[in-house]
């Protein structure tokens, strides 16, 4: 049986690596006594994967896991078990969806991430956002371990609005160019009189590929 699970995590989990996050979920599933399915082989490991690794320091209201269970378990039962153990924890279940094995891995479907970006007091982003929206093209050089790549930041931003404490934006999470909130803020700094500093980033949602903006638990797969 395969399920997709959505969790929110608070800031005590903001500073752990992707590997440690994976371990935290694994131990939580063990405490909840979920019938986990394990890979075959000398060193069996649970069949689970976490979509879209979260950069160190970010909070998230949208962690998605793709999980295989060894036994069919009613989703209400899974929810009940997870809520029982997560009541006093910093990982809170937000939703669950049973999914057929034919659907590709969740990680491969994710295309966009939505972020709430809090800006340090004293910075104003409204003007920079207006200037960004008004520009026809905003050249951006993506730096990766493999080298650099020229891109147009406008195509990497699906939406952007100013908020009370900063801005909310939907940014590309799919190849060829993943656009990170820090990179967006750096680009916005070019339209501002001074460098803009980030206080906090909270990932609010992930969206799957396609014309419509759908999150994984609601998409037509």
């Amino acid at each position, binding site marked *: 049986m395969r399920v997709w699970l959505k969790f929110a995590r608070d800031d005590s*989990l903001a500073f752990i690596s992707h590997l440690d996050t994976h371990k*935290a979920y694994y131990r939580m599933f063990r405490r909840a006594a979920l019938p986990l399915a394990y890979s075959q082989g000398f060193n069996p490991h649970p069949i689970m994967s976490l979509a879209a690794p979260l950069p160190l320091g970010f909070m998230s209201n949208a962690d998605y896991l793709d999980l295989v269970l060894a036994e069919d378990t009613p989703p209400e039962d899974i929810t009940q078990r997870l809520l029982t153990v997560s009541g*006093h924890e910093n990982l809170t279940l937000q939703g669950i969806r049973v999914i057929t094995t034919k659907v590709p891995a969740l990680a491969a479907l994710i295309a966009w991430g939505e972020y709430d970006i809090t800006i340090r007091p004293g910075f104003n982003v409204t003007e920079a956002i207006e200037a960004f929206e008004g520009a026809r093209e905003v050249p951006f050089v993506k730096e990766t371990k493999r080298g650099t790549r020229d891109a147009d930041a406008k195509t990497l931003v699906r939406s952007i609005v100013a908020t009370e404490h900063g801005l909310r934006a939907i940014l590309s999470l799919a190849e060829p160019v993943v656009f990170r909130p820090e990179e967006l803020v750096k680009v916005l700094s070019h339209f501002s009189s001074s460098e803009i500093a980030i206080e906090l980033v909270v990932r609010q949602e992930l969206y799957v590929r396609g014309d419509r903006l759908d999150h994984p638990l609601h998409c037509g797969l």
Partner: protein
Amino acid sequence: MIPKNIRRLLPQVQKPARYTGGEVNAVMKDLAAIDVRIALAFPDTYEVGMSHLGLKILYKVVNDIPYAYAERVFAPWVDMGGLMQTEGVPLFSLETYSPLHDFDMIGVTLQYEMSYTNILYMLDLAQIPFLTHQRTESDPLIIAGGPCAFNAEPLAEMLDAVALGEGEEVTQEIVSVLLERKLQKLSRQETLQRLALVPGVYVPSLYSPEYNGDDTLKALQSISIGTSNVVKKRILSKLTADYIPTAPVVPYTDIVHDRIMIEIFRGCARGCRFCQAGMIYRPVREYSSQIVLEAAEESIKNTGYEEVSLSSLSTMDYSSIETTLPMLVDKLSCQGVNVSLPSLRVDSFSVEMAAQVARLRKSGLTLAPEAGSQRLRDVINKQVSAEDLLQALRGARRLGFKSAKLYFMIGLPTETIADLDEMVDLVTQAAGIMPVTVSTSSFVPKPHTPFQWEPQFSMYELETRQRYLKERFRRDRRVKYNYHDASTSFLEAIFSRGDRRLSKVLLEAYKRGCKFDGWSEHFKFKAWMDAFAECGLDPTFYANRVREEDEVFPWDHLSPGLDKSYLYNERAAALKAEWTVDCAREHCPSCGVCPNLGVQTFTEKERR
């Protein structure tokens, strides 16, 4: 939520998860309902401190008291410590991010002499004065415990009180004194006077030393009415399930021992003469196997861990290990949980038992013959023969182990080059069975052991012997040789048997930048020696001097229950290379602990 001033530092430091708290099973309480706040401070990194069983126990003991709240705090790594100082962020607890100054008591554990400067480092970051007499009514009380508390004298000027022995009961009594303080508005001094009346609690400032002309101690007398001249350790007469921490905090990040630790017994009566743990934790008391099995299952349910390790001074000496270990492995393996054993005795029985534990095969085999020659093993009362070791290794090879680690000490009393040659012969024979890694540490004479009168070999002599062994092992490609730094062992020897004049040296060394001394990359030997020179004290007086039989020791008044005459007789037996039997298996050699403390040895086998 993590406060902003702390959060801002986190992206700038290594391993920020050390400082974020909020882990699974961390205890959260409403501060408005709390009368006594305790910070359990571990003077080493998060990864080291979170691996410590004693911390898990005390965290549970205090948090089980409705009106008290224990939080955790560890020594920040130097990057974080530096930032906290420049940004003015005081040292904070991991549960509520409160500055340490807000607590009624800071509990520090004395696990290791080389962590003493870290206590000063933590006080510094917490903006709490270093010395007891500098602290005011609003400062927390600094109370220590742990094995090194049995000679807490080098920290006498920094510690407000010290608890000796097992902490479960005495900690609860200290908490009630702190409640009295709050309700009756007692002053700091009145509180210390009351603490001194709690059995097992030592208040260093209520004792005054007198020295002889040769710098040895003449006497250390109580200067407070009603305070005893000897403080005896506390001990649980029977081990029950009451205090077992079956819901320990589960860290989000890797720690040194990232697994469930289930204690199976306390004390060890084998009587190895160098071993302080074997002397100060007497007598042997076992948990019933039923408690062990239940505690393991409950802990797994509460944590989700995949590994359980059985903890004690010598796991294979648990009287019903033969039945308990297979039961535990059976019960847990179907839940995908491994069992691991931290310490193995040097014999084939241990290796066979260990073979039942699949995990061990991956990690390899570690055995500690401690001394290389039979004569020297007789001196230290390590009742293991060369044949025991070789048989254990042959058995291990049959069971599929591919290599072994062997631990030895050098510089043991009476050691000569002939003993080292015998070690080389033994290792060569062992290497014929499987490749071995040999590690030597330098012997540190410890208080409350038969060797407390013995000098440590000079650093020069220890280093000469390390070079000798290195040379002898160099040509054998089946042998890899490692050794511990002798200068660290020298400092351990100074502080393990030091007196309260060393408080000055600690402070001076800290001011010269010494901290994390147990971490070789931070150990500053020259700064230490400069600190001694500045204070006009001779380090070799503490480390390298033979003590007279009747010398008064700075730790004589801190009693684990042993008779000093027993220790001296054991020393005499050592020098004649005579054995002493183990009281848990044979007759009682009269160490004094049972009558002095009103307890007795208790094993699972006898109960049946």
